[in-house]
């Protein structure tokens, strides 16, 4: 229900005021509407959304790609799409409500700039969106499909898993849909509940033939998205929607790419390796600081960036050094991607491990609305896991 888009709308005061039914005679509801009786507003503050569970830490200003501009994450996505439409005349962008700019504003202005045959709305049908995108790609053009929320990607599961992922293999490389990129807003947002909060990357990690990529901020988003678009394999690009506005960085204006399947060591350390991706990176960065301050523990923070195929080397090299590994994601723990990482690291680094590999993830429940503060793998849960690993 485009719920999460509300933070883009909040504050943007609607020009349209709906007066109420009929003759508008009820429009007398105004500021006085919700004047509550005394004692009632005592809880008002706490009714509001819980304060953000992370502190966004911007990346340093990149110098190697030319001039930069201040952009938030949705603007950096727009910038990548803009670059693509400008340089690749075959590229088309489509999905639900994409034409007017998208419910998260990622395609604002592109229709006016490049025409409605290149940036357009589709009927409301995710299996159609992905199937259509595969077809565009098979015919040799560049397809950038938007699924309005990662939670609504499942009607397209068959097209992604049985079609996109297997096109090249089953045709003996006669046909492929490598020009397809699927974008979808992803992850928790504070009030999204079951169907506007999910992190479904693990479902797709079980699917050889596609790539799955998740950026941690605007600079990474643009570079990784452009890599996905130019990569000759179908890619799913999940965008942490809580960062669309919250994350602001200096982003290069010109196109640039950040290599896929390469993790990035954001902070070096010697005692514990912390692996995450997307929003959770910012929780981990804070946890690393807390561990240093409160426990005197030195953490190495790694942003995996590409979930499939993932960079085992960077992660294993770090664990060989630190001997301890904590992996954290919002998705349920059972069958989550942390399990895959843990298993591989255990195979590769068994003799280097000083403590069992630790996972701090979502519980094995749907993503709950009012219990979100208890559900998410927050910094306190991660810190506690580090304590336990150190004292093992």
């Amino acid at each position, binding site marked *: *229900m485009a719920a999460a888009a509300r933070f883009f709308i909040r504050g943007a005061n609607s020009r349209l005021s709906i007066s109420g039914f*009929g003759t508008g005679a009820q429009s007398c509801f105004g500021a006085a509407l919700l004047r509550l009786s005394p004692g009632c507003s005592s809880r008002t503050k706490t009714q509001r959304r819980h304060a953000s569970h992370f502190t966004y830490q911007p990346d340093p200003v990149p110098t190697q790609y030319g001039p930069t501009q201040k952009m938030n994450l949705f603007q950096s996505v727009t910038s990548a799409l803009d670059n693509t439409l400008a340089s690749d005349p075959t590229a088309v962008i489509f999905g639900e409500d994409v034409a007017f*700019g998208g419910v998260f504003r990622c395609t604002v202005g592109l229709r006016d700039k490049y025409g409605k045959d290149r940036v357009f709305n589709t*009927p409301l*049908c995710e299996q159609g969106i992905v199937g259509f995108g595969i077809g565009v790609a098979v015919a040799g053009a560049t397809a950038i499909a938007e699924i309005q929320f990662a939670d609504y990607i499942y009607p397209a599961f068959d097209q992604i898993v049985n079609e996109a992922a297997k096109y090249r293999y089953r045709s003996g490389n006669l046909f492929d849909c490598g020009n397809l990129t699927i974008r979808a807003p992803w992850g928790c947002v504070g009030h999204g509940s079951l169907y506007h909060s999910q992190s479904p990357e693990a479902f797709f990690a079980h699917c050889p033939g596609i790539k799955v990529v998740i950026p941690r901020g605007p600079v990474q988003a643009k570079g990784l998205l452009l890599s996905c678009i130019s990569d000759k394999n179908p890619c799913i690009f999940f965008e942490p929607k809580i960062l669309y506005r919250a994350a602001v960085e200096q982003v290069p204006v010109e196109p640039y790419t950040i290599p896929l399947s390469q993790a990035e060591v954001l902070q070096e350390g010697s005692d514990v390796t912390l692996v995450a991706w997307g929003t959770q990176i910012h929780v981990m960065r804070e946890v690393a600081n807390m561990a240093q301050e409160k426990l005197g523990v030195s953490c190495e923070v790694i942003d995996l960036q590409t979930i499939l195929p993932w960079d085992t080397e960077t992660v294993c090299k770090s664990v060989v050094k630190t001997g301890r590994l904590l992996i954290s994601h919002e998705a349920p723990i059972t069958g989550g991607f942390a399990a895959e990482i843990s298993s591989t690291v255990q195979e590769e680094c068994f003799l280097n491990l000083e403590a069992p590999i630790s996972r701090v993830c979502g519980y094995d*429940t749907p993503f709950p609305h009012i219990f979100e503060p208890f559900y998410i793998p927050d910094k306190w849960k991660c810190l506690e896991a580090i304590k336990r690993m150190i004292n093992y």
Partner: protein
Amino acid sequence: MNKMYGLCFHAVRQTAGLKSSRLLQRRAFRVSTLHRQQPFDSTLEKPQFPGASAEFVDQLEFIEPNVISGIPVYRVMDRQGNIINPSQDPQLSKETVLNFYQKMTMLNTMDRILYESQRQGRISFYMTNYGEEGTHIGSAAALNPNDLVFGQYREAGVLMYRGFSLDHFMAQCYANADDLGKGRQMPVHYGSKDLNFVTISSPLATQIPQAAGAAYAVKRENSNRAVICYFGEGAASEGDAHAGFNFSATLECPLIFFCRNNGYAISTPTNEQYRGDGIAARGPGYGMLSIRVDGNDVFAVYNATKEARRRAVAENQPFLIEAMTYRIGHHSTSDDSSAYRSVDEVNYWDKQDHPISRLRHYMTARGWWSEDDERSWRKQSRKTVMEAFERAERRLKPNPELLFTDVYQEMTPQLNKQRESLWRHVQQYKEHYPLDLYDK
């Protein structure tokens, strides 16, 4: 082949016979000969394909989509609330009509207060029903209370008509301890077992094939129940919608598909959603009886739903109602519709063609409703809503324990372990968790 047909028929009769236990006698699995293929006869110069029966032609001609375009819009009242054709007047009592009006306006009042409360950050999200009140109340009134409802999310009036209390609406939106859904879903995802209203789910169109299955089961129960399934014209584009239509037709389900065609799916206007003549035009393609009604005419909606319900149950077949209306509000509190439609357009529907004003004209013309009645009802309804609102605002959130229940019917050992580890953790880090806001 003739024989084979006979055989099949026999087999069907036999199964029917086998099943014609007491339970199934009244509403047996009728296999109506109408839906049955023609017997094969090779001497006739007619197409004998198993998939269709018609005549051969020798002119090359494509069927134009507009041969089925222009499905008329059924209405009972004009925009001024005058009955157009007396034979279509449902002749509802004054009391019934006043109840319609009070439910429609109460819904509108609740919407405005909850919308505003979201704006003030008191609840996280809201979706209004502005302009669609007639579709809700007209259809809900035509059903039996035990008919099962599968909704989309913009049908709060149906639930209100059935007697869902303001306290329950508010509790759900506040996700407080009184929420029947235990605080797990976003606002407006209501559900009520007692009122036969299946809990709303955000993923679109998923309820459509589910409604077909439910209608099939209800048919086998032989309990004089029907199922109604609401959805938007946008959701009708999903694959699930196709599945639901086709299943209910082939499996002969007593089901009313009620499409609220309100002109938009978030920002997407209907001309980017479909190219045929709306949703009603699809009915014939599925072998389904269909009608288009003026959704802002509560009596037209009532008549159409009543007749569809009667026949769905009597004849075991699905009906498709496309109620034409207009989404006067923003899609939700996440949306600013001025980015994709004009204020004039919205104002037209708000001021010139609103289901509530139309009904009010009707009541006024009959001398059933005065300015004074209006004034005092508004005051009273607002007060009632505000009181419920304040009660909900004061309530605590549900016990966090409920995070782990109902995943499965039973608590699994794995989940139990996770539950215990959360509690241990929260005890240790008390100051970082908003425990005081939650029920103990």
